[in-house]
């Protein structure tokens, strides 16, 4: 684990770009987290098949917490607008089974503007937290 990865609030101090393997190594450090990743991998593979290249993971999974409930995050839906959107809709409806809680930017604003990003970047104590920037193209 890199030094100064977390702020004093226990959340990521900066964005952390990584592959799926690195995600498993850095954030799958106990049985509980391993189990979540085991479920999530199937869902993330599905998301990749819809054309999504990056998922910005936040919430307790991207923190020091030993027992997060699931993996929270956000992605840019414009990456998959030419794919079968009915499948994406089904996936979003049923993503709990993959221990995922993902959202996309559905407004005219870009992901990097306010609102969606501001919301997911706000930590429990109000601190601005970093994302695990997961490169889905590394997922096999």
């Amino acid at each position, binding site marked *: 684990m890199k030094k100064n990865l977390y702020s004093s609030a226990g959340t990521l101090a900066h964005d952390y770009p990584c592959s799926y393997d690195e995600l498993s190594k850095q954030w799958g450090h106990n049985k509980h987290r391993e189990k979540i990743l085991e479920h999530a991998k199937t869902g993330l593979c599905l998301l990749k098949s819809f054309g999504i290249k990056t998922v910005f993971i936040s919430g307790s999974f991207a923190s020091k917490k030993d027992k997060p409930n699931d993996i929270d995050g956000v992605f840019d839906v414009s990456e998959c607008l030419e794919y079968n*959107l009915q499948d994406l*809709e089904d996936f*979003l409806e049923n993503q709990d089974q993959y221990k995922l809680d993902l959202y996309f930017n559905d407004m005219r604003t870009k992901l990097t503007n306010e609102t969606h990003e*501001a919301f997911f970047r706000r930590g429990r104590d109000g601190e601005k937290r970093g994302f695990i920037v997961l490169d889905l193209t590394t997922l096999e």
Partner: protein
Amino acid sequence: MITSSQQHNASKEAANDLRKMLLAEPDPDIPTGLVAVNRKRLKKKLTTIEKDIKEYEESVKLDLSTLKFDKFEDLLKAPIRYRLANNESVKEFAEEVGINKRQILRYEEEAYQNCSIPTLFKILDHIGVRITGEIKI
């Protein structure tokens, strides 16, 4: 569970962000069905945050003599609700129950779900919580 005024403020800001996201005009390039699913989930998230905010606001003005719980999960939250109702800092509470402050912070972080039963009972005993009730089978 929200355990400080700082978290309370952050949660209120998060709820406001979510309300804005739910009211914002959707991108016309995204199919309405897809937006509806996304917003349904966002709404659910907002409901959870609003519930947490309400629980915190009730806790800080709670009359401890009326503290009741029907679920084990609520019993686990009793030390937090006691501390909030007495307007105690984590440090003050830690000293009162004779447990390290960092450990209390770890327990509060997970709403005491990571606390052993003997330790929980030790804490409850220190703060004068007596458990009565019945087991239903």
